[in-house]
């Protein structure tokens, strides 16, 4: 672990130093998106990786975070940072409401139920006038400052905010992994009945994991809204986003602390670049590329790219 910590700190230092050398807004944007997805995918990994409860509905938390912050800001002039907190509370609420009935389902039923929940959210938000329906919400342009969570002259402040969120997510994931919760989640994934026979309230621990997952996703929703200053249902709670979170973890290494980070740094730049350079005539090429990526990983590195770095020690 000593070596792992060293690599981690080195990596974070490099990330922190990048804006000092690379002022290019496009590179900056890609890195921001990468770190945002890494943060969310770490969140996905807590429930989908450690606990083995595959969620295809995590984008709903992203949407709740983004919409809560936006509505509080637009309609009630509530500071976005407070909006972020409120978003987390609502996201945890949603996680509990969805998790309570769904975690009783065995096997893949949870995954299917989360797809349904995610899609229901899209339908509701697309038709709900109060939240702007299909048009969405424009954030008011405020004076740029950290307190207002808005910056117009440069992307770099956003870069550092999302970097902090990423570090926070890694810290949370690390604490989970090293604590009783992490051990219990792995036991639940491995053999739920065996876990119950050892006194583990599997329902409770799945709920805790799902709530942590919800928070880490929700803060990214808030961030995204403040970064783009415009949100609408298909940009904030699309099923594809939920699937990407899963694929990123899969590419990097499911159930591993740094799996989602590695996955995001491979997947997101690739996606963004194909989208930009192939443009609209390349519609679907990005999908082909990442399908190939997933197939290659499945064949050569079923444990994910993470396995390249860890050499044997599991």
């Amino acid at each position, binding site marked *: 672990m000593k070596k792992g910590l060293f690599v981690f700190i080195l990596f974070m230092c490099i990330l922190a130093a990048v804006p000092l050398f690379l002022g290019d807004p496009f590179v900056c944007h890609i890195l921001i998106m990468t770190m945002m997805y890494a943060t969310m995918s770490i969140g996905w990994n807590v429930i989908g990786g450690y606990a083995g409860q595959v969620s295809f509905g995590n984008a709903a938390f992203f949407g709740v975070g983004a919409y809560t912050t936006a509505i509080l800001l637009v309609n009630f002039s509530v500071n976005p940072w407070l909006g972020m907190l409120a978003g987390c509370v609502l996201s945890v609420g949603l996680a509990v409401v969805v998790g309570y009935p769904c975690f009783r389902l065995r096997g893949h039923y949870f995954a299917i139920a989360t797809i349904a929940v995610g899609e229901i959210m899209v339908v509701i938000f697309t038709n709900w006038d109060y939240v702007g329906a299909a048009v969405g919400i424009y954030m008011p342009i405020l004076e740029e400052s950290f307190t207002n969570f808005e910056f117009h002259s440069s992307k770099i402040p956003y870069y550092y905010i999302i970097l902090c969120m990423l570090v926070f997510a890694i810290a949370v994931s690390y604490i989970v992994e*090293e*604590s*009783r919760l992490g*051990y*219990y989640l*792995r*036991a639940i*994934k*491995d*053999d739920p*009945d*065996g*876990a*119950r*026979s*050892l*006194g*583990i*309230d*599997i329902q409770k621990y799945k709920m805790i994991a799902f709530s942590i997952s919800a928070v880490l996703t929700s803060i990214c929703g808030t961030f995204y809204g403040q970064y783009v200053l415009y949100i609408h249902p298909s940009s904030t709670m699309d099923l594809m986003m939920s699937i990407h979170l899963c694929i990123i973890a899969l590419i990097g290494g499911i159930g591993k602390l740094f799996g989602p980070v590695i996955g995001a740094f491979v997947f997101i730049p690739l996606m963004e670049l194909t989208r930009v350079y192939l443009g609209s005539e390349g519609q679907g090429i990005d999908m082909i590329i990442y399908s190939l990526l997933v197939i290659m990983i499945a064949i050569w590195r079923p444990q994910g790219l993470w396995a390249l770095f860890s050499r044997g020690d599991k």
Partner: protein
Amino acid sequence: MSSDILIVDNVTKRFGGLTANADISFSIKEGEIIGLIGPNGAGKSTLFNCISCFYNADGGRIVFKGQEITRKDPESICRMGIGRTFQIVRTFKDMNVLENIMIGAFLRNPKRKDAQARSEEVAGVFRFTDKLYLKATSLTISEQKRLEVARVFATGPKVMLLDEMMAGLNIHEIKESVELVLRLREMGITLVLVEHVMEGIMPIANRIVVLDYGEKIAEGTPDEVVNNEKVIEAYFGKKYAKRRENKTRIQ
């Protein structure tokens, strides 16, 4: 009566038309070793599942330390102090030996460091000290069965229900298992063992309960039970029992 730690009172469990446990009653005193035997399909594992609340009994009551537990759930049962193993090994496949035991130890030791220290002690009792970092799946089946017992032991049970822990072991391993069971009793644990291995269970059990086709057909000391007509019939068939009866009459 007050020394009965576990009471099984008229427990019935049906699967559709099949009655896997029919009005089974017996009670267990603290510190006893009880053997639960019977041919395959007699309902032994089902009874374990009822006691540990993996199944809810359709009728009857189960009382542990004076408290009715019939309708509780498996995790509460474990927390109350009844630990069980499974007939088919269920170690956590992706974890090593130490981690498997830690999952049990966490119940009474929420801090990771304490759980690890406790697990290392437990590993000593179960002779895993030099195998702590091996994957559970790399162990032999008999070692995996022992690991399962170790991991339940780490939850700090008062009663342990062990389902066929000696099945498939060689003579040497059976001897070790027997010693282990006796050691657990010395530590104050009451044990119920489902066993087919008679040379394992008969010498150490205080009492034997025999099931056949879901019914309790006999209960008594090992000696009483092996000479019981119904038991011989259940194991060897009516013909053999008759022949044996005639023979003893002639003598």
